[in-house]
């Protein structure tokens, strides 16, 4: 280890600015940020976003990994910092650190069928993987996507989701938990879509959503012949540093910020099963 490495401040944020902002649903928005110099990421990785004087929050990247002109983040305003990010307008400053963490197994998925299951805002980090697959579509086998939201008004990236549904090179199924009379799609939890998905027994699954949804999805996939090592889920814990120094993100033996967030279900299942771990 060189002295220079030892002496640079790993918690230093890089000031940048918001380029654009889109309100997705009542409490969720997407911002485009000018990427810090040299920034690049792999699908499933996250950044630490800083709002001047307010604080920092971990946010997974929801944009296209092939685009270097913009860094896209989808955020639900549920706390002091995320609400402050939500008030930022194009041109406003913010700080970025990262990207950090272990993302989706894009390399391992090459040449194989891919199953993607997202629940609610869990679709955000999966969207980067979908972009990656569509950018290099020939590198992957069958691609089946199942997404579920609580209500039709909560559908994320709604135009894009409908556009993906029209494509012939991927299969996308959409469901909502509850809906009014005008809803014409399926109603029910996302795990109910799993029997409709096509894949061979070497397929790779990427699953992101609330923990309980990931657990039931992973079990349903396993029941359909998936090896638990081929099912990947995204863990979530409190994060203060993103770099293995604050201890907050521990989940069993894992530092979610360094060894995750993405983990094979074979490793996550035991953790999911222990209350308040």
């Amino acid at each position, binding site marked *: 280890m060189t002295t220079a490495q030892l002496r640079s401040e790993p*918690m230093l944020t890089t000031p940048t600015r918001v380029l654009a902002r889109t309100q997705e649903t009542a409490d969720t928005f997407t911002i485009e940020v000018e990427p810090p110099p040299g920034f690049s990421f792999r699908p499933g990785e996250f950044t630490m976003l800083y709002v001047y004087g307010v604080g920092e929050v971990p946010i997974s990247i929801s944009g296209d990994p092939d685009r270097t002109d913009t860094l896209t983040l989808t955020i639900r305003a549920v706390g002091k910092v995320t609400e402050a990010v939500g008030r930022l307008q194009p041109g406003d400053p913010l700080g970025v650190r990262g990207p950090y963490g272990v993302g989706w197994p894009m390399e391992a998925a090459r040449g194989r069928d891919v199953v993607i299951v997202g629940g609610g805002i869990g679709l955000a980090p999966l969207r980067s993987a979908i972009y990656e697959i569509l950018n290099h579509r020939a590198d992957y086998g069958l691609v089946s996507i199942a997404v579920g939201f609580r209500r039709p008004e909560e559908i994320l990236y709604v135009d894009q989701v409908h556009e993906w549904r029209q494509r012939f090179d991927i299969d996308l199924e959409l469901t909502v938990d509850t809906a009014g009379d005008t809803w014409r799609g399926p109603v029910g939890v996302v795990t109910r879509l799993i029997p409709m998905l096509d894949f061979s027994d070497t397929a790779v699954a990427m699953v992101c959503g609330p923990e309980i949804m990931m657990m039931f999805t992973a079990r349903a996939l396993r029941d359909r012949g998936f090896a638990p090592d081929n099912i990947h889920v995204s863990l979530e814990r409190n994060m203060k540093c993103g770099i293995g120094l604050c201890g907050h993100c521990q989940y069993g033996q894992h530092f979610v910020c360094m060894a995750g967030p993405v983990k094979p279900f074979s490793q996550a299942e035991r953790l999911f099963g222990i209350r308040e771990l």
Partner: protein
Amino acid sequence: MEAASVLERRNFNGLLDALTARGYRPIGPVLEAGRIVYGPIQRDSDLPIGKTDIHDGGMYRIADRPDDALFGYNLPSDSWKQYLFPPHSRLWTATKSNGSFTVAAEEIDPPRYALLGVRACELAAIRVQDTVFTGAFPDRQYNAVRDDVLIVGVNCGQAGGTCFCTSMGTGPQLTDGYDLVLTELLDGDHRFLVRSGTATGADILRELPLTPATPADCAEAEALIEHVSGHMGRMLDTDGIKDLLYDNAEHERWDDVATRCLACANCTMVCPTCFCVTTEDRPTLDGATAERWRTWDSCFSLGFSHIHGGPIRTSVKARYRQWMTHKLATWIDQFGTSGCVGCGRCITWCPVGIDITHEVAAIRTEEAVHAHR
């Protein structure tokens, strides 16, 4: 190992002078408000001469010794992490400019500390924190202090009521990693057996009025260590401990300890290896600058595990389990070493005397009972 020499008690200040002459700031044990803590040392008279400390679960008191030992106590309540990894530090400052802001890392020019009286378990704890802070993202402030630290170890002359370093394989004898190591000999003439472990340590010794150690001096030092090893206040069976705790995450004993634990976080504050911190971002009053601070945090605090919906570890059971499992089990997976060095501080300073060694023993015994059914 370097040949041992003898430093007479009356020449002890010569050691302090040699440290200060080299630009070190000696820190060592001082008696303060009824306990021994670490603080600046200028002369030998700053040390807790003739004092000792009595430890048990939730119990601590100072007592007189029948002699004038300088290092005749067991272990201070605070640990060296106060100096290597201060409880509160500013990491950087952001300054508003042109509709954006700039950030500047905190300038650091840490004092060069000479840590005087480092026990074997404490050196082990420093090395545990070294592993934490020199990972993929080395901690700048820790390493800046650590790189310049001089370690003057002192072997224990007695074991405390809550000590279990032999169980954890960390003591009671300092074997390497020090610049100098002393063994205080109180039989006959009050004197110190000294050895150097680094070139700097050897240089310092060359400036002191030493005499070669006699075989009798060395035998006395060895006998002391042997005596200490045989008189540990506590013991912890570490055999298969990782799997024991992994397999017993839902053991009833966690409910039991939760009825006693106050979630006060004392154990994590006194633990020499605990490193969890939280960050605080705050603007200065006029808003022209904003600062990032980090502060020791504890897995016993409710907010520690907060994610958008609320805290994950709402029960005290889950928080105690997190702490103890981290110390003794998950730490091994994370850093290749136990997170517990057997110093016993968490036992002494727990207001209700919860004892990590008893908790492990209870899980082990009750597990054995289950296994035989």
